[in-house]
C-alpha cells in the first residue's frame, strides 16, 4: 500500500510514476542545456560587439538584460523541478518564495547606490573621470601620463 511511511508529519505523499518522472527530468535537462547554450551564444555576441570598432553600449546592455532573464528562467526550473518545490503545497512554496522577494529591493537599492556614487565622483572628481573612463578609437588617442595606483 503506502510507498514509504516517511514521517507522521506528512499528510499525503506525492506520487510520480517512473515514466512521468523520467520524461520530466529529460525535458528539464534539455531545457537547461539549451538555455545555457543560448546564454553562451549571447556571451559570444557581446564579445564580438566589444571587439568591433564602435561598440554600441545600449545593444550590449540589451543582450545582458536578455542573459539575466534567461538565468532567472534557469533558476526557476532548477528550483521548481530539480528541488521539487513546484510539487509542494502552496503553503510551502510561499514560505520560501515570499522572503526571497526581499531581493528585488536588495538588488535595485544597491545597484542604484553604486551607480549614483559613480555619477557623483564623475561630477566632482574630474581626475577620477579622466583616468578611468574607457577610450575607444585608440589610434587617435592622446598620450596620457600613466596614472599610478588608481583603482
Amino acid at each position, binding site marked *: 500500500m503506502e*510507498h*514509504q*511511511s*516517511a*514521517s507522521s*508529519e*506528512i*499528510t*499525503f505523499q506525492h506520487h510520480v510514476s*517512473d515514466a512521468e*518522472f523520467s520524461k520530466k*527530468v529529460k525535458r528539464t*535537462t534539455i531545457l537547461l542545456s539549451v538555455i*545555457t547554450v543560448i*546564454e553562451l551564444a*549571447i*556571451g*559570444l555576441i*557581446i*564579445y564580438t560587439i*566589444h571587439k568591433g570598432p564602435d561598440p554600441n553600449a545600449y545593444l550590449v546592455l540589451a543582450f*545582458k538584460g536578455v*542573459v*539575466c532573464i534567461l538565468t532567472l528562467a*534557469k*533558476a526557476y526550473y*532548477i*528550483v521548481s523541478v*530539480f*528541488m521539487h518545490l513546484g510539487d*509542494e*503545497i*502552496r*503553503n*510551502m512554496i510561499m*514560505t520560501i518564495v515570499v*522572503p526571497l522577494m526581499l*531581493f528585488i529591493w536588495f*538588488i535595485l537599492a*544597491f*545597484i542604484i547606490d*553604486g551607480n549614483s*556614487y*559613480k555619477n557623483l*565622483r*564623475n561630477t566632482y572628481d574630474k581626475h577620477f*573621470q579622466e583616468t578611468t*573612463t*574607457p*577610450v575607444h578609437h*585608440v*589610434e587617435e*588617442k592622446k*598620450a596620457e*601620463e*600613466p*596614472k*599610478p*595606483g588608481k*583603482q
Partner: protein
Amino acid sequence: MATTATAQQTKWWSGGKSPFNIEYGKLMMWYFLMSDAFTFGAFLISYGTIRFSQNFWPDPNAVFNAFPGAGHANLPLAFVSVMTFILIISSVTMVLAVHAGHNGDKKGVIKWLAWTIVGGIAFLSCQAWEWHHLITGAHATLIDGKIEWVGQTTRVNPWGQLVHGEALTTALNNSTVESLARIVHEQHGNTMTEAQLLGLPKDQLTGMINTAELHVRQNGPVAFGGYFYGITGFHGFHVFSGVVINIIMLIMTQKGVFERRGHYLMIEKAGLYWHFVDLVWVFVFLCFYLI
C-alpha cells in the same frame, strides 16, 4: 488518496501535522538554503555595487579565455561552459539518485550518487586549474609608469585598459631590463633564452619589441580579484562540502542505514543542498563570466 482536492480540504494549520506537508529536517534544509541564498546574494550584490561605481570594469572575455592544454589560444567562455555543464549534469544525476531513493532502490541510489560525486570532483578540479592559471599566468601590466609582469591576485589586476601609442613608448623606456627581456622572450619564442636576453642593453631590447603586437594593459580595478576569488571560492567551498556530504550519504547507503530506516529522506536533503550549489553557480556564471 493524494489528490489536489485533499490539499485544499485539509486544515493545514489545525495542528498535529506539518502545515507545509513536509518533514522537519527537509523544511529546515529549505530555510538554511534560503539564508544561504541571502549570503550569496549579498556577496554578488556588493560586487554589483562596486562594479556600477566604476567607469571601467575588465571584460570577462579578456580575463577568462584560457583552456587547459590550449596554450595562449584565445577561447572566451569555453572552459567555463564546460564547468557549467558539469554542474548541470551532476544536478541531473542527483535528481536520479533522489528518485531511486523514493523507490527504495538501493543500487540506483549508489550508482547515481557516485556519478554526482564524480561530477562534483570534476568541477572542483576545473576550478583549481582556473585559479592556478589566473594566479600564475603573468601579464605585461602598466603599474606606476613601468611595465611589470603580474598575475591576477587580490592585490593587483592586470586587466585594465589597453595602453597605446606614446604612452606605450614612454612605459617601455621606464621599464626594467627584466620586464623588457620577458616581453622579447614572449614575442620571439625560443630564439634566445631569457637569461641571454637579460645580458643585452636596454635600447637593444626595446628595439627588438614589436609594439604593434604588444598588448600592455593598465592595472584594472583591484576589487575584481577579491570579489572573483571570494565568491567563486565560497561557491567552491559549497561544492566541496556538498561532495563530502554526498560521500557520507554514499557510505551510509552502502551500509544499509537508510534501508533499515525504511526511507531515503536523507538523500533528499543532500539533494536539495546539491541543487542549491548548482543554482548558485547559475548566478555566479552570470555575474562573472557573462555580463
